[in-house]
């Protein structure tokens, strides 16, 4: 992994020379609208393209070898303090994750750009299986290119792309994906108990191609860390962020310390909502759905199972934030 030549190495799994944020196909099933041809740049578009180029140059080259078990181990106490004292994290069912071998962990995503789900789950996974077990998380390019977040690569975070997911699975790693991505993570707070992958089925194809089990990971509480008002999809389209930065949303929320928070680009201070995560039994696709599998059927099964669990977790909660 770390010995790739410069020529063979692609930036975050995308083809060299291509626009950094305009991938041919997203790992989780981007829509056709993302692949629209440019209609000639106007000044606004040129400006946004320039920003995209600047950010694109910051996106680190995907290298699975950047994951640093010693760094993770040494940072466990800090993670534990944050997860235990601030979020009162509770993770159930880690024993449902196969003890070894590649596995695709499919989670619902909540909490905006300061999503606490990943922190609580990564800590739980690392302490349960040990930092020695390979574990990668797929994240949006923008997350990895943000100043100050370079340390995420040491945790095994790589940009979400089919190539990166494939490389991680081939290395025998457990891979955490959030198919709902930016669409789901910025959903309004009143939709907190809804699994919304926006129809993105890429994770099913990935699991089938590599014959790895899917383990659903359902979390609740993240959407209570701020008051999320709107995804701002219209605003994103108007500013062409959807085409240039793969950002289909420009979220609007009320969050500390900003008050009205548009874009959430600088993050926010999440409220100390209790985060509860439940790991469900592994779904072995070929065993359960047979050789004549139907991706839609699998997608429906996974999302329905996750929704049922999320409903149960929501029923357990008595008060927002307090849990």
């Amino acid at each position: 992994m770390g010995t790739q030549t410069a020529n063979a190495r692609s930036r975050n799994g995308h083809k060299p020379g291509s626009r950094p944020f305009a991938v041919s196909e997203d790992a989780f099933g981007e829509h056709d609208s993302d692949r629209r041809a440019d209609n000639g740049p106007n000044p606004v578009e040129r400006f946004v393209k320039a920003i995209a180029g600047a950010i694109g140059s910051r996106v680190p080259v995907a290298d699975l070898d950047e994951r640093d078990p010693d760094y993770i181990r040494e940072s466990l106490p800090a993670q534990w303090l944050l997860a235990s004292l601030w979020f009162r994290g509770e993770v159930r069912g880690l024993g449902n994750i196969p003890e070894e071998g590649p596995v695709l962990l499919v989670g619902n995503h909540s909490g905006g750009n300061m999503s606490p789900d990943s922190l609580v789950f990564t800590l739980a996974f690392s302490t349960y299986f040990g930092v020695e077990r390979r574990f990668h998380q797929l994240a949006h390019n923008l997350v990895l290119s943000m100043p100050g977040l370079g340390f995420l690569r040491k945790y095994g975070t790589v940009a979400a792309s089919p190539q990166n997911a494939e490389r991680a699975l081939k290395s025998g790693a457990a891979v955490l994906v959030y198919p709902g991505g930016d669409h789901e993570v910025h959903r309004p707070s009143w939709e907190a108990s809804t699994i919304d992958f926006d129809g993105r089925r890429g994770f099913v194809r990935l699991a089938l191609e590599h014959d790895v089990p899917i383990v659903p990971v359902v979390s609740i509480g993240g959407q209570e860390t701020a008051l999320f008002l709107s995804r701002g999809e219209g605003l994103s389209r108007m500013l062409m962020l959807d085409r240039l930065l793969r950002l289909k949303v420009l979220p609007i929320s009320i969050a500390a310390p900003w008050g009205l928070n548009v874009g959430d680009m600088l993050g926010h201070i999440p409220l100390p909502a209790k985060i509860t995560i439940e790991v469900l039994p592994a779904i072995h696709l070929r065993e359960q759905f047979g050789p004549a599998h139907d991706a839609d059927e699998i997608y429906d099964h996974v999302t329905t199972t996750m929704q049922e669990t999320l409903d149960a977790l929501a029923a357990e909660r008595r008060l927002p934030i307090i849990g």
Partner: protein
Amino acid sequence: MRVQAAIDVAAPPELVWDFVADPTRYLHFMSGITRWEVASEQARGCGARYRTLMRVGSAEVGGLVEVVEHAEPFDLAWTSVTGIDQRGRWRLRERRSDPTRPARTHVELRLQYGVAGAGLLGWVAEQVAAPAVRENLRRSLHELKRQAEHEQARATVAARRAAQR
């Protein structure tokens, strides 16, 4: 960080040793322990390895440990191989003030834990976790006492019945 707890058990050390040296019993009397599995061909004695986890706060922490001292029926100590740094020790000592009365056992359970290189936050995390770990040890010893004394009472009754026949 080092935490410890102690208790007196109305049973001889040999009987208490049967509990603490048997990895299959840990889930039955150790509070907070969610996993204590044999991870080596050898199940007991020096060199035996176990996968251990204890729930503390929002995580189950532990790792692979190896028995490094196995002095039956007095001392059993282990140290971590992977996971958080830890050293644990069972210390059993006979307490018999009156030779005509049954033997009692003073049981100490010690646990040292931490993460080397974690710095100030590591120290803070150790302090914050200490009350929960200490409480787990205390409850474990109380459960061990209950089970061991029950076992001792059962053995005493069985011996008495055998003598009457």
